[in-house]
């Protein structure tokens, strides 16, 4: 790629503030929008939320008023960006509809990242996580048909298959077993840092979303399922964020954040099919270029380092939303039985795992199992979208009751 965010010029910060009329974006069509357009919107919402939260955390520990002022100025614009992006989603979407799109993001974003991650340990972490998001999509899709009388295929299209992943029931682990080993900031490829940050942002926003909206349903099975999957998202945020080197300075993390935003807006601008949405990716890219310049300046002054030392000289290959069916099926065939122990992975259900399972389930089936039972009861089978044949794991092939 010849585009280098570190040398391109963006919009001056004082010209980036939008008024109410400009912020009032037209939402995309609830029924006719490319599912991947929605996925890009959801991804960038997560990224901008992380930008704001990170900036707030930085401000909390920063003694320098001048720096805090700079953070506040940029952060306010990031907050406007977040609203322009997230408000592209229409108000007619139900919480569950949006949830299913969130899980499609988790699956196909993590899938792509895993396939393009150069470090094997990091790649394994992404492969581990994606099988769990894949299962969440399946559980929510079944809930959707039960309570909203609509099929998830209307939301995800046939881009992403819907069938059991690593069953949510066995995703509940002892909290300490969600901590991985961090990459070394001096040895890691820049793309590895961007990958980790993107997935932390995505899972964090998913976690937030379930925390806030999971109680908005009245049906008990819906409320319970959101509590359960919400707790797995907590595990995923811990899992992905533990990959980041804690030795990274605040300045270099700021640069990494802004660089990543440029990277993603650029990637999405290149592949966006919807012209109105594409215009927003382009506008925001031009804003982020300036945020990056400001961050690089701060790092030079306070860390004495050039941004290229942290994020490299060349923009990586564009991140792309596309089906990952073959990749996922390979994982389903080989990694279903994995759990974690300390920073690594094992296949046996060790003592600490079993103790957690006993405590959390309390001798009963969790909501993630009950929702499937409920769907089978009402419809004769569970809901799936299996476009590439039967489930790779024979234990998880679809049963259809005799009714």
């Amino acid at each position: 790629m010849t585009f280098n965010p570190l040398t391109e010029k963006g919009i001056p910060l004082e010209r980036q503030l939008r008024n109410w009329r400009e912020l009032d974006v037209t939402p995309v069509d609830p029924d006719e929008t490319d599912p991947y357009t929605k996925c890009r919107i959801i991804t960038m919402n997560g990224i901008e939320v992380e930008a704001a939260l990170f900036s707030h955390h930085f401000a909390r520990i920063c003694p320098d008023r001048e720096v805090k002022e700079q953070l506040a100025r940029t952060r306010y614009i990031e907050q406007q960006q977040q609203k322009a992006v997230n408000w592209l989603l229409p108000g007619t979407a139900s919480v569950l509809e949006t949830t299913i799109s969130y899980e499609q993001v988790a699956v196909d974003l993590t899938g792509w990242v895993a396939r393009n991650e150069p470090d094997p340990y990091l790649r394994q972490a992404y492969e581990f996580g994606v099988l769990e998001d894949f299962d969440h999509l399946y559980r929510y899709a079944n809930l959707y048909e039960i309570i909203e009388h609509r099929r998830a295929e209307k939301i995800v299209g046939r881009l992403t298959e819907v069938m059991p992943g690593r069953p949510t029931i066995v995703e509940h682990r002892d909290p300490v077993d969600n901590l991985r080993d961090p990459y070394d900031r001096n040895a890691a490829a820049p793309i590895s840092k961007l990958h980790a940050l993107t997935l932390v942002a995505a899972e964090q926003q998913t976690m937030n979303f379930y925390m806030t909206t999971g109680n908005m349903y009245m049906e008990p099975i819906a409320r319970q399922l959101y509590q359960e999957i919400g707790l797995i998202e907590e595990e995923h945020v811990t899992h992905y964020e533990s990959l980041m080197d804690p030795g990274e300075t605040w300045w270099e993390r700021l640069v990494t954040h802004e660089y990543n935003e440029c990277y993603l807006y650029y990637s999405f601008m290149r592949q966006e099919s919807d012209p109105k949405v594409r215009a927003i990716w382009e506008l925001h890219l031009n804003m982020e270029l300036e945020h990056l310049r400001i961050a690089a300046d701060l790092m030079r002054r306070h860390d004495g380092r050039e941004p290229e030392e942290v994020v490299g000289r060349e923009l990586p290959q564009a991140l792309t939303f596309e089906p990952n069916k073959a990749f996922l099926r390979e994982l389903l065939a080989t990694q279903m039985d994995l759990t974690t122990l300390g920073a690594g992975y094992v296949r046996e259900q060790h003592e600490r795992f079993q103790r957690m399972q006993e405590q959390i389930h309390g001798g009963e089936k969790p909501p993630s199992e009950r929702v499937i039972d409920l769907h089978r009861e009402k419809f004769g089978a569970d809901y799936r979208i299996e476009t590439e044949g039967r489930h790779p794991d024979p234990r998880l092939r679809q049963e259809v009751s005799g009714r």
Partner: protein
Amino acid sequence: MAQAPQAMAEQVDVVDLLTAQHSLIRDLFEEVKTAQGEAREEAFHRLRRMLAVHETAEEEVVHPIARHVLDGGDDGLVDDRLAEENEAKKMLGELEGMQPGKPDFMELLDRLRMAVLAHARSEERYEFMKLRDKTDPSTLRAMAASVKVAEAFAPTHPHAGVESATANLVAGPITALVDRVRDAVRGTSGTTDDPRS
């Protein structure tokens, strides 16, 4: 994947029944948009019929009860829904007089689709959710039964201005009779075999 018919017959709760119909209507819009020629006309007749009977049943059964039991029911909550229904019926009526193959038909259809979607979502959020809260299950089941009866006898064409339960019941039976005879004569009854309707 085929859906077991008995699953739909088990929708004894009026909220479930109407929500399923909202979903069906959404699908029908898509069918009209993607079909061509005669298939589009036929799909449109099914949509028109579904919308007409669905809205009539809501006006006869659901909104009067909502008006009575819900906070704000009499203060505009129901009136807002009726106003939306009136708008939708006008658009549907206009569409009936247009050629399904023409661009202006598709443009108006799209406006109707968005209006119907917003209206359905508002009903679900502001009316149905609260009805379930304030009404016991046996009443909700009885309402479902009433909705089915109302739909069996409802006019199959939009008649804007007939939004109250009384007006529906006065104008309804005759209008419905006229509509159904008209449909039969023209072969445009557009009955769907979907067990949900």
